[in-house]
């Protein structure tokens, strides 16, 4: 086994070795116990950049990589300003405890809301630029030439007049001793050479050889494996369990109850733990929650559609009066069900707790929240805890929560000094999520005699994520995030239509099923409601849905919709039986639009042939990765549209695995063509916004193809056959 210290010189080491891993390398941090192994560390230039004597560049990344490519994109931004050789770039994660100890020098670790690049681009580029200036200053001393006469490119500093050159590796140690410059000027994006280009990801090879280690793959010396069963009804309690029945089963080491609502079996292997847990008799106290079902939840939300009291999210003029006086009135009720994230890697975390230390290894979208959870569950101060982040086998918002971290630490606390890897079964994962919230929506529109939209009333009824997860973020009881994509103003998720009389409000109705942030969050259902209803209004006005929208849309929203429509050939003849449907939205600081091309056969078979998707995310850092995020967004959004639905019976989630929760596979994946129309005047996110146009563009195309307006997802419940 070889031990390499990372350049951070932290309490953790990277272990790679055949001894541990049976012949292939693996990387994870094991605690550093004695002082003996202090390797030579290379001093950093600053928090973001370390350059080794052999020119290797290590870039530190605070956000979590979960497939979205943020790691590569952030490295591109640092490398661009650093003017380093891209082929020498590697990366590493600082730990959350190091961030705390260094006064949060890496700022926000949280990876959600498509924020990685749009919120960190400024300070990571400055980190790269400052490091470059320090390297130039050190080279000036070495070459005895004025810094102003030196240029840096591709990890080499050149003094043109004398023809002398020096590499970054040769001056990095001297540069690391220098004071950083107070200010740096960032490059004009039009001069970018690494950023803005479709460079390959930095994390690919190990993912096609099986070498990539995810949290679930970790092996620590002396480790045991645990698995959990929480009360099947979220919010219910553990009444009793009969550990004696399984204690003699193969490999079982311990059976423990945690948090009063779950039982955990610790064994030598996951398979033995799982087998024993399946045989463990348990009794639950679910109380009144057992009376809740999808039907009762629908009743609760339906009442909210007409309730007197609601939080107002967007108001212009007098919608009621305008609609009452309109020549034509259109009304519809839509709904959007609970969804599950389904990260391909089930939840897991590994923890080791001693009297004065708590260490956690896990995939997390929020390292600092995981650190806080470790501290709280272990009872140790944050300074005695740390979290070693692993690459995530999917996040989609689910791994922003730390419930699984808390559980692993609680179990590890029962067995001090023994590393415990807690793995949730897929069944546990399906039934104990923080689900995409459930909502319904009633929309009423008024058209004048010429078919102009004069008033629009939108009542959302349903669940608030913030009320459940972050009640401190409510504003006078209102959840502003409910109005994502429909907000009156702002750079995050503003409503794009100019409607002279508008009222959008929210009757908050919170069932006990915990809601959470699901990739795209509330933009998803709001775009279904608004974009499908826009088509209904256009139909009522006897107008083309594109022309109808264009009259109402503000410039940036209109431009991206037009870009998608132009590229798709909207309005031009399509193959026989093919139909287009449109949708647009602003979310996560970006403007997106999609045009779906579908056909529905005589026997009702839907085929989504192609999606043309346009994105204005301000700046494009890696067009190849954006293309993949856009295509992936359709796989995710269309899975929800076609199949996604979590239902509730006797208080519990009914779906338990992929046989009862289906997802889109390659045979149903449409061809996705991505059009990038960046305007260069802002920084927008990419990982999420496009999901929201997937369902409405397809629903609108289905309506054109069949005359059937589907208002309740998922599509699998609807018969699209003619005449049915």
């Amino acid at each position, binding site marked *: 086994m070889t031990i390499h210290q990372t350049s951070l010189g932290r309490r953790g080491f990277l272990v790679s070795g055949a001894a541990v*891993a*049976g*012949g*292939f390398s*693996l990387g994870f941090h094991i605690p550093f116990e004695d002082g003996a192994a202090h390797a030579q560390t290379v001093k950093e230039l600053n928090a973001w950049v370390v350059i080794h004597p052999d020119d290797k560049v290590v870039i530190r990344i605070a956000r979590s990589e*979960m*497939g*979205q*490519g943020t790691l590569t994109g952030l490295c591109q931004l640092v490398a661009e300003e650093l003017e380093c050789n891209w082929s020498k770039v590697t990366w590493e994660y600082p730990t959350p405890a190091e961030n705390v100890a260094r006064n949060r020098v890496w700022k926000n670790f949280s990876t959600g809301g498509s924020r990685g690049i749009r919120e960190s681009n400024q300070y990571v580029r400055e980190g790269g630029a400052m490091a470059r200036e320090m390297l130039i200053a050190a080279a000036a001393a070495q070459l005895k030439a004025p810094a102003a006469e030196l240029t840096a490119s591709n990890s080499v500093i050149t003094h043109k007049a004398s023809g002398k050159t020096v590499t970054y590796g040769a001056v990095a140690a001297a540069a690391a001793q220098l004071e950083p410059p107070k200010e740096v000027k960032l490059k004009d994006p039009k001069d970018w050479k690494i950023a803005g280009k479709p460079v*390959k*990801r930095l*994390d*690919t*090879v*190990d*993912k*096609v*050889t*099986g*070498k*990539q*280690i*995810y949290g*679930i*793959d970790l*092996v620590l010396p002396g480790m045991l*494996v645990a698995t959990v069963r929480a009360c099947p009804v979220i919010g219910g309690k553990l009444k009793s369990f009969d550990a004696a029945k399984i204690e003699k089963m*193969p490999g079982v080491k311990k059976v423990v109850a945690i948090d009063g609502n779950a039982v955990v079996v610790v064994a030598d*292997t*996951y*398979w*033995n733990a799982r087998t024993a847990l399946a045989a463990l008799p348990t009794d639950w106290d679910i109380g009144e929650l057992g009376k809740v079902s999808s039907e009762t939840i629908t009743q609760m939300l339906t009442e909210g559609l007409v309730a007197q009291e609601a939080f107002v999210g967007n108001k212009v003029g007098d919608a009621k009066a305008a609609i009452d006086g309109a020549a034509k009135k259109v009304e519809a009720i839509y709904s959007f069900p609970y969804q599950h994230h389904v*990260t*391909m*890697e*089930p939840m897991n975390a590994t923890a080791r707790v001693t009297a004065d230390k708590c260490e956690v290894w896990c995939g997390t979208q929020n390292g600092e929240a995981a650190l806080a959870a470790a501290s709280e569950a272990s009872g140790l101060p944050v300074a005695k805890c740390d979290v070693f982040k692993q*690459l*995530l*086998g*999917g*996040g*989609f918002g689910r791994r922003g929560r730390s419930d699984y971290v808390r559980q692993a630490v609680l179990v590890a606390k029962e067995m001090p000094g023994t590393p415990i890897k807690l793995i949730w*079964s*897929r069944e546990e994962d399906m039934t104990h999520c923080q689900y995409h919230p459930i909502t319904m929506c009633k929309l009423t529109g008024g058209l004048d005699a010429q078919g102009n939209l004069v008033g629009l009333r939108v009542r959302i009824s349903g669940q608030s994520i913030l009320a459940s997860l972050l009640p401190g973020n409510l504003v006078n009881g209102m959840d502003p995030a409910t109005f994502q994509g429909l907000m009156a103003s702002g750079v995050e998720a503003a409503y794009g239509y100019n409607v002279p009389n508008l009222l959008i409000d929210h009757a908050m109705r919170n069932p006990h099923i915990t809601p959470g942030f699901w990739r795209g969050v509330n933009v998803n259902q709001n775009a279904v409601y608004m974009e499908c209803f826009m088509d209904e209004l256009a139909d009522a006005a006897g107008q083309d849905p594109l022309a109808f929208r264009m009259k109402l849309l503000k410039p940036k929203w209109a431009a991206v919709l037009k870009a998608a429509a132009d590229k798709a050939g909207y309005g031009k003849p399509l193959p026989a039986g093919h139909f287009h449907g449109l949708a647009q939205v602003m979310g996560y600081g970006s403007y997106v639009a999609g045009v779906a091309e579908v056909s529905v056969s005589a026997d009702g078979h839907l085929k989504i042939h192609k999606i043309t998707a346009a994105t204005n995310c301000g700046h494009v850092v890696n067009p*190849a990765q954006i293309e*993949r995020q856009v*295509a*992936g967004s359709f*796989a*995710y959004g269309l*899975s929800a549209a076609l199949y996604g639905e979590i239902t509730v019976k006797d208080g519990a989630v009914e779906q338990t*695995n*992929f*046989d009862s929760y289906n*997802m889109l*596979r*390659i*045979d149903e*994946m449409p061809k*996705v063509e991505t059009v990038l129309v960046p305007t260069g005047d802002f920084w927008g996110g990419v990982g999420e916004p496009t999901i929201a146009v997937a369902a409405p563009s397809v629903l609108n195309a289905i309506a054109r193809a069949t005359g059937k307006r589907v208002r309740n997802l998922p599509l699998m419940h609807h018969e699209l056959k003619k005449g049915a």
Partner: protein
Amino acid sequence: MAVLNVNGKALNHNADPRTPLLWVLREQLKLTGTKYGCGIAQCGACTVLIDGVATRSCQVPANSVGNRKVTTIEGLAANGQLNKIQAAWVAVDVPQCGYCQSGMVMAATALLAAKPKPTDADIDAAMTNICRCGTYQQVREAIHAAAKA
């Protein structure tokens, strides 16, 4: 003590004989490239080859394998050289989170062995693995690229 023939080696393990091959590979033989996704043969994350046939190892009891040849993702690269399918995967930059990709590569390996020049319809029929990140478009492209390599 039982023996399995994995990636050309005879490997011993002590697991209960009915333990699914997936968990013997992952926990006894420390071949963690084969992934757990569902445990019920739905997602394909656990795909390995048994005598060349793509098989979902979560539903195969270890004692049913006998002396048939098991190939896992770790067994594809010879002497550190990626095989042409892995190389195509790298060239197309297929993986996002990567968790499903071992299974995808194994399924593609079996497909290309059976049909060296697969059509899109062949790909649709053979590649039933789930990818939540939505790499399907790149998976298709990489299979066609590997077929041409």
